[in-house]
C-alpha cells in the first residue's frame, strides 16, 4: 500500500480491527472478546484482535505488522478517547505506509467502560460503536495534513510573575514578544508581597530585576494599562486588537521624577491607594508603587480635578519640564499579528466580605492577608510597622486559614498557598510585634521543598496552632479578658472543646479565585474554563499549559492556584511549548476542512453568510461558492446547510456519518 496512493480510496476495504483492554480499565467493564468476535464477522474485516495496551509500542507494532502482512487498508482501534490517542495511532498507520486518515477510533473507555456498571449494556454499546466505526472507515479518504506558516511573534497577556517569566524566556530565545498588562505597572500580585516563603527573601528584591529586564529587553514590546479587545484567526496566525487606555502622561517623555505628584493641587494624598489595598493614600496623579515598571506616573481621571470639574490650574503639567503631561490623551488601538498567545492573567483574592461571620469590613481589627503583606512591607503605608487602624500595636493576632477555600459555602478548592503564606505572616508578625500569634487551620498543607521545615521552625518560634475552623469573629465579651477584643470562636478538634480566643488583630488568609471577568476573557480567546472558573488546561497531567485551542497557552494562577515556584516553572513550560511551535515554523492543520463540489453547486449562496471566518465566498465569474481552505476551520456548518448536498467536509462526509448512524443502531 502506497502512502500517496489516492486510488486506495476505491479499493475494497480490508479492515483491521483492534480492541484494547487498557489493562483492566476496559476489559474489566465489558466483554472484550465478545466485541472482537462480533466485529470479526462484519463484512470487510480481515483481522480482529484484542490487545492489552494498544497505545504501547508492541501494540502499535502489532498494528503495523498486520497492515503489511494482511494488506490492510483501513484501521479501527477501539480504546480510549480520540482526543487522547488518535494521533498516536495515525502515526502508527503512517509508519506502516498507510495514509493516517484511513483510521477511525472508537472511544470505549471514557464513553463506555468508565461510565457504565451494567456489563451486558456496556458490551452492547461497545459493539454498536465499533460497528459504526467499521462501517464508517470504509468511506474514509486519502487526506493530507495542510501546512501553514507559523508567525514567530508572541503575545503574552498579563505581566505578573508568570507573564514576566514567560515573556523573558521567549524574548531571550530571540522571539519578538508583546507583553500586555491591564494595570499601570507590571509585577502583579508578587510585587505586593513583602517576603516570600519559605526562604523569606524579599519579593521586591527578586522581582524588580526581572521587571527591569522586561522593560529594557529589545525583543519585548511592553504595553501596560492596556487590554486585549479582540482576537481573530488561529494558531500561527492570530490578529489581536489591543486597547491602550490613556494614562494622560506621555510614557516616552516621563522619567518618573515625581515632580508632577509633588506639585499636584492636592497638597496631601487623599484617595485610596489601590496598590496598598486602600490602607494608604495617593493623589490623582501618582506612581503606582516605587518600583513601578514602566516608571511612569499616571493620572486617575476619576479623581483628578481637571477631569471632574474642568477647573484646575494644572500645576502638575506646569511642574513637568519634559512636558509629559497630556490631558488630551485618547485611548489608542493597536493591531498586531502574532502566532502564539500566552495567557497569564492571574487570579483575584477571595472577597473576605463574602464570609460575614468573620466580620471583614465590620470590625476594624479584621484584615486580609494581602493587607498584612502591605502593612509589613517597608515601603507600605505604615513603613513596615504592623499597627491597627487606630495606631495600636497588636499584642495578639489570630490568623484564620481557609477563608474562601475548602468551604462548601464559598469555594470548594484548596488555594494551595494560604498555609504557607500564613506561616510566613505569622513569623513576620511575631518578628515585628512580638505578639502572640494563633493560627486556626483545618489541615496544615506544606508540600514543597523546605516547606514542612518552615512549619517546624514556626512551631519552635512559639506560634500557636489551633486545629479547628473558626465559626465566627465577634466583639462581645463573655469574660473580663475578652473586653475590647475580637473573639475567635472555634472548636479545637485536637483538644476536644470550644475555644474562645481574644485577640487584637485578625488576619483572614483569603484564598485564590478566578478573575471576575474570566468568562469574558475565556470567550475573547476562545478557550475553556473549568467549573470553578479557572482556565481549562488541555490535559490535567499531560498538557497542563496547553488549552483546547492550538497556539494558546496558559501559565500561572489563571489556570489554578499555585505558589511562585510553581508559577515560574509553569510559565517556563508554557514558553517552551510555545517556542517548540514557533521554531517548527509551520503548523499542520487537521484536514477536516470543507470544500465545494464545483460541478454540482448551483450558486444559491446559502452557505456564504454562514461562515464566521469568511472562508466561503461567491465566485462571481463561475457563479459558484468557493471555500478558502486556509480560512476554513472545519466546523461543517455550511455542509449541513448546503441544500443541494454540494459541500463536503473531509473526515466528516455525509456518507461517513450516515454509516455511523446505521452502525450505532445495529444491535436491538
Amino acid at each position, binding site marked *: 500500500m502506497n502512502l500517496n496512493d489516492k486510488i486506495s480510496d476505491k479499493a475494497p476495504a480490508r479492515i483491521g480491527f483492534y480492541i484494547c483492554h487498557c489493562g483492566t480499565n476496559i476489559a474489566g467493564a465489558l466483554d472484550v472478546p465478545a466485541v472482537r468476535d462480533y466485529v470479526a464477522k462484519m463484512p470487510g474485516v480481515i483481522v480482529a484482535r484484542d490487545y492489552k495496551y494498544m497505545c504501547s509500542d508492541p501494540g502499535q507494532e502489532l498494528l503495523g505488522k498486520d497492515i503489511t502482512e494482511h494488506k490492510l487498508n483501513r484501521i479501527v482501534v477501539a480504546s480510549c478517547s480520540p482526543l487522547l490517542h488518535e494521533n498516536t495511532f495515525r502515526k502508527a498507520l503512517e509508519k506502516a505506509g498507510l495514509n493516517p486518515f484511513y483510521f477511525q477510533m472508537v472511544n470505549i473507555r471514557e464513553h463506555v467502560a468508565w461510565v457504565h456498571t451494567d456489563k451486558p449494556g456496556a458490551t452492547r454499546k461497545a459493539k454498536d460503536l465499533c460497528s459504526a466505526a467499521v462501517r464508517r472507515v470504509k468511506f474514509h479518504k486519502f487526506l493530507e495534513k495542510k501546512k501553514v506558516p507559523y508567525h514567530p511573534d508572541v503575545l503574552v497577556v498579563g505581566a505578573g510573575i508568570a507573564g514576566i517569566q514567560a515573556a523573558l524566556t521567549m524574548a531571550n530565545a530571540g522571539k519578538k514578544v508583546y507583553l500586555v498588562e491591564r494595570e499601570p505597572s507590571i509585577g502583579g500580585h508578587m510585587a505586593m508581597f513583602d517576603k516570600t516563603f519559605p526562604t523569606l527573601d524579599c519579593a521586591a528584591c527578586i522581582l524588580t530585576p526581572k521587571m527591569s529586564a522586561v522593560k529594557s529587553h529589545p525583543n519585548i514590546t511592553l504595553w501596560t494599562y492596556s487590554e486585549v479587545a479582540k482576537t481573530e484567526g488561529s494558531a500561527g496566525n492570530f490578529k489581536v486588537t489591543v486597547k491602550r487606555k490613556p494614562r494622560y502622561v506621555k510614557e516616552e517623555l516621563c522619567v518618573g521624577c515625581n515632580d508632577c505628584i509633588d506639585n499636584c493641587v492636592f497638597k496631601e494624598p487623599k484617595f485610596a491607594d489601590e496598590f496598598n489595598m486602600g490602607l494608604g493614600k495617593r493623589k490623582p496623579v501618582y506612581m503606582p508603587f516605587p518600583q513601578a515598571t514602566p516608571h511612569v506616573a499616571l493620572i486617575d481621571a476619576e479623581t483628578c480635578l481637571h477631569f471632574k470639574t474642568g477647573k484646575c490650574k494644572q500645576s502638575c503639567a506646569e511642574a513637568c519640564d519634559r512636558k509629559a503631561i497630556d490631558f488630551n490623551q485618547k485611548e489608542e488601538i493597536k493591531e498586531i499579528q502574532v502566532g502564539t498567545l500566552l495567557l497569564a492573567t492571574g487570579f483575584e483574592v477571595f472577597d473576605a466580605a463574602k464570609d*460575614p*461571620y468573620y466580620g471583614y469590613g465590620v470590625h476594624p481589627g479584621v484584615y486580609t492577608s494581602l493587607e498584612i503583606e502591605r502593612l509589613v512591607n517597608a515601603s507600605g503605608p505604615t513603613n513596615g510597622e504592623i499597627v491597627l487602624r487606630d495606631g495600636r500595636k497588636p499584642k495578639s493576632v489570630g490568623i484564620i486559614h481557609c477563608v474562601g477555600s475548602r468551604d462548601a459555602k464559598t469555594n470548594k478548592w484548596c488555594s494551595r498557598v494560604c498555609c504557607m503564606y500564613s506561616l510566613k505572616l505569622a513569623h513576620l508578625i511575631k518578628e515585628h510585634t512580638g505578639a502572640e500569634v494563633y493560627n486556626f487551620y483545618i489541615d496544615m498543607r506544606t508540600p514543597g521543598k523546605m516547606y514542612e521545615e518552615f512549619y517546624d521552625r514556626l512551631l519552635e518560634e512559639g506560634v500557636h496552632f489551633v486545629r479547628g475552623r473558626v465559626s465566627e469573629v*465577634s*466583639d*462581645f*465579651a*463573655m469574660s473580663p479578658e475578652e473586653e475590647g477584643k475580637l473573639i475567635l470562636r472555634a472548636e479545637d478538634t485536637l483538644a476536644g472543646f470550644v475555644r474562645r480566643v481574644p485577640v487584637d488583630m485578625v488576619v483572614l488568609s483569603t484564598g485564590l479565585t478566578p478573575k471576575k471577568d474570566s468568562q469574558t476573557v475565556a470567550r475573547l480567546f476562545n478557550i475553556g474554563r473549568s467549573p470553578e472558573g479557572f482556565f481549562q488546561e488541555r490535559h490535567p497531567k499531560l498538557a497542563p499549559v496547553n488549552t483546547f485551542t492550538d497556539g494558546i497557552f496558559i501559565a500561572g494562577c489563571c489556570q489554578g492556584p499555585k505558589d511562585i515556584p510553581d508559577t515560574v516553572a509553569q510559565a517556563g513550560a508554557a514558553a517552551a511549548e510555545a517556542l517548540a511551535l514557533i521554531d517548527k515554523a509551520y503548523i499542520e492543520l487537521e484536514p477536516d476542512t470543507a470544500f465545494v463540489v464545483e460541478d454540482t453547486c448551483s450558486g444559491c449562496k446559502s452557505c456564504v453568510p454562514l461562515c464566521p471566518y469568511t472562508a466561503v465566498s461567491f465566485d462571481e465569474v463561475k457563479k459558484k461558492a468557493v471555500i478558502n481552505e486556509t480560512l476554513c476551520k472545519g466546523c461543517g456548518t455550511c455542509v449541513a446547510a448546503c441544500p443541494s448536498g454540494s459541500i463536503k467536509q473531509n473526515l466528516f462526509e455525509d456518507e461517513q456519518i450516515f454509516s455511523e448512524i446505521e452502525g450505532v443502531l445495529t444491535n436491538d
Partner: protein
Amino acid sequence: MKYLYYPGCSLKGTGRAYEESWLEVSKALGVELEEIEDWNCCGSTPYMGVDEVKSLALAGRNFALAERQGGMDIIAPCSACYLSLNKTNHVLNDYPELRAKVDSALGSAGLKYSGRIKVRHPLDVILNDVGVDKVKKLVKKPLGLKLAAYYGCQITRPYSDFDDPVRPVSMDKLMEAAGAKPVPYSMKTKCCGGSITGTVPEAALELACSLLKEAVKRGADAMVTPCPLCQFNLDGYQDRISKKYGKTEMPVLYFTQALGLAFGISPEKLGINRCLASAEKILEISR
C-alpha cells in the same frame, strides 16, 4: 395596602402583647389586615423535624385558605410562623414529590394551593411598603432611648430576602425613625435559648444571659425584638438569670410596642403591662 394576617398561636397566647401592639401600629400605618379565616397551626418549627409532610400540609392548609380569601401577601409577625410558612413555600416549589403528597392531603379536604403566596414580615412591610418617611411622620413622642435591636435567628435566615442574614439592620432603621438610638449590638442573631429553655435550661439560660449582659454593656435602655419566643425567654427568665448569674435588669419590648409608644399610643393598648421585667423605666423615659 391590604394584607392577609396570620397571627399563629403565640400572638394569641404568650405573645398577646405583640398582637395588641402590632394591630395598633398597623392601624396607625394604614396597613389593612384581614385575618385568615379558620387558620390553623403554622406547621411549627420543631414539628417539621418530627413529621415533615404533616407539618407542610398544616402550613399548606393556611395557604389554601389564604388563596381562597384573595391570595394577597400574608403577614406573619411570629418568627417561627414566618419561617415555617416560608419554608413550606420553598419546599413545595423545589420538591415535586413532597408537593404531590401535600397536594393530595389538601385535596382530600377539598383544598388547593398554587405555591405562589408571599409570606411577609411586619418589618419588611413597614420598611418597604409603608416606608420610613411615613413612620417618621407618625412619630409624636420620639423615643430618645438607647435600644439594642435583637432579631433572633428565624426571620433573617434562611429564607428572608429583606435583610442581611448575619447583620440585619431593618429594625435598627425603624427604631432610629422612631427617635431611638440603636446601640451597636453584634449579637443580633445569636441564639436566645430557643425552645431548650424548657428542656436544657442550664445551656439556654447562659445564652439568654449573654444577650442581656451584652445589651447592658452597650448601654441599652431596653431591648427590642420581633420574636415572641425571644421576648418570652429574655423577659420571662430574667429572674432566674439574675439569680444564677447576678442581677440583670433589661426591659425587653416587641419592636411594635416601641413603635406604638413613639406614635403616642397608650401603653395599655400596646400591652406594655404584660412585660414581666420592669418596663417602668421605659415608660418614664418615653413620657
